[in-house]
């Protein structure tokens, strides 16, 4: 893809450094949680991954709306890039949730509202990416996937509420515990690390999207 720009290099170095520091603090520096023990250390990667997944899909939504209003292919490229990275973060979130769930709840999977909604979120954006892979025309692909990006995101709170009601009609939701300051700042550190990773991957993915657009143009020209 050609040499990295200064911004890309800086972002990459920052992302790797903060990830290393974040994981080190989460694994070594912070003492084990009083209630859950060491398994709770998974929180420092699970929660940031989940937040970034949601942020990524929110950006897909914003880009979709912008595209539908302005019809600028740039918004489509940013939206598609964010969707792909969001799917990666969602898969990581779900797998980490299972790994954390097994020792604490005794099962890999439970029909917890957040867990269930995250799985449905994954299905929505896998659909978004599949739709893109099946549409050949650049403009139609952008328009259709932007529509899916809008509908998919608007649906998320409705899905979440309906899954919550589905569960809470049968069992009370677990009460949230107050978070110790140690845990909080470790979490924030890792959140910063994940955000930098997201930013770096976005910059690279958008560059790839531009290149792919260029390739499509040439293929169409030569065809």
């Amino acid at each position, binding site marked *: 893809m050609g040499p990295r720009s200064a911004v890309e290099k800086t972002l990459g170095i920052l992302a790797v450094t903060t990830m290393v520091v974040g994981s080190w603090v989460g694994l070594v520096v912070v003492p084990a949680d009083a209630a859950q023990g060491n398994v709770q250390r998974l929180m420092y990667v699970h929660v940031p991954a989940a937040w970034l997944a949601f942020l990524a899909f929110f950006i897909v939504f914003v880009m979709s709306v912008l595209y*539908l209003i302005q019809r600028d292919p740039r918004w489509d490229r940013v939206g598609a890039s964010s969707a792909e990275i969001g799917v990666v973060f969602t898969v990581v979130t779900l797998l980490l949730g299972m790994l954390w769930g097994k020792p604490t709840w005794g099962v890999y999977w439970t029909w917890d509202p957040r867990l269930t909604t995250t799985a*449905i979120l994954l*299905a*929505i954006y*896998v*659909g978004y990416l*599949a*739709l893109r892979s*099946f*549409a*050949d025309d650049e403009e139609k692909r952008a*328009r*259709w996937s932007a*529509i*899916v990006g*809008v*509908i*998919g995101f*608007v*649906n998320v709170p*409705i*899905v979440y*509420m*309906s*899954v919550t*009601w*589905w569960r809470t*009609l049968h069992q009370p939701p677990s009460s949230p515990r107050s978070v110790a300051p140690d845990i909080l700042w470790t979490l924030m550190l890792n959140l910063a690390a994940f955000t930098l990773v997201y930013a770096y991957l976005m910059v690279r993915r958008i560059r790839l999207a531009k290149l792919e657009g260029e390739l499509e143009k040439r293929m169409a020209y030569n065809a």
Partner: protein
Amino acid sequence: MSVFHRAWAIVWKDLLIEARTKQSFNAMVFFAALVLFIFSFALGPDTQLLQRVAGGLLWVGIAFTGLLSLSRTYQNEETSGGLEGLRAYPGDPRAIYLGKLLGNIVMLLLVEAVLFPAAGILFQANLWPYAGGLAAVAILGTIGFSMVGTFYSALTVNLRAREVMLPLLLFPALVPVLLGAVNATTLILEGDLMGEAIVWLRVLAAFDIIFFVICIWIFPIALEE
């Protein structure tokens, strides 16, 4: 002609073709009945168990049957090139959406009118006392299902892999409808002692209203050249 006249013209045209050819309806009813049968076989002849899960089985049947009919939504325009054929209709494209939506709702409700009594016989449950509540669930659920379905089948009609893409896009979006419909049906069949079914009917109604606004707003964009 107003939007509603145009929409009505499409409904009338499609239903008339259907009434004369019966291309879809018979197949849909048999397919839905088959789904119920297969689930009954899979779960075994335990009548009490079947009655307990009847709500879920019914709506799985409706969802699959609905999918079948949705993929045929635009078949009358197929010969004129799918979306291109739709664009050829004069006037506001919203009328096309409304017309196709209404057609799908009518078809699916007709199938359900056969399916619910059939389920009552298969699962040995007396549905008559609950007819009012079940009808409300069926109507609200079918509207929600058809609204998103009619929309997404327009989006996928000219796609290479539409048989895969339509359910892939549709089912995640329909989670609130399926949850609402299944839970309301189950609660009503259990006698709805706690008055919880109304919560799910509200979920269905809210979903219907929100998606009606969104689909009507976005459909012209989906249909653009």
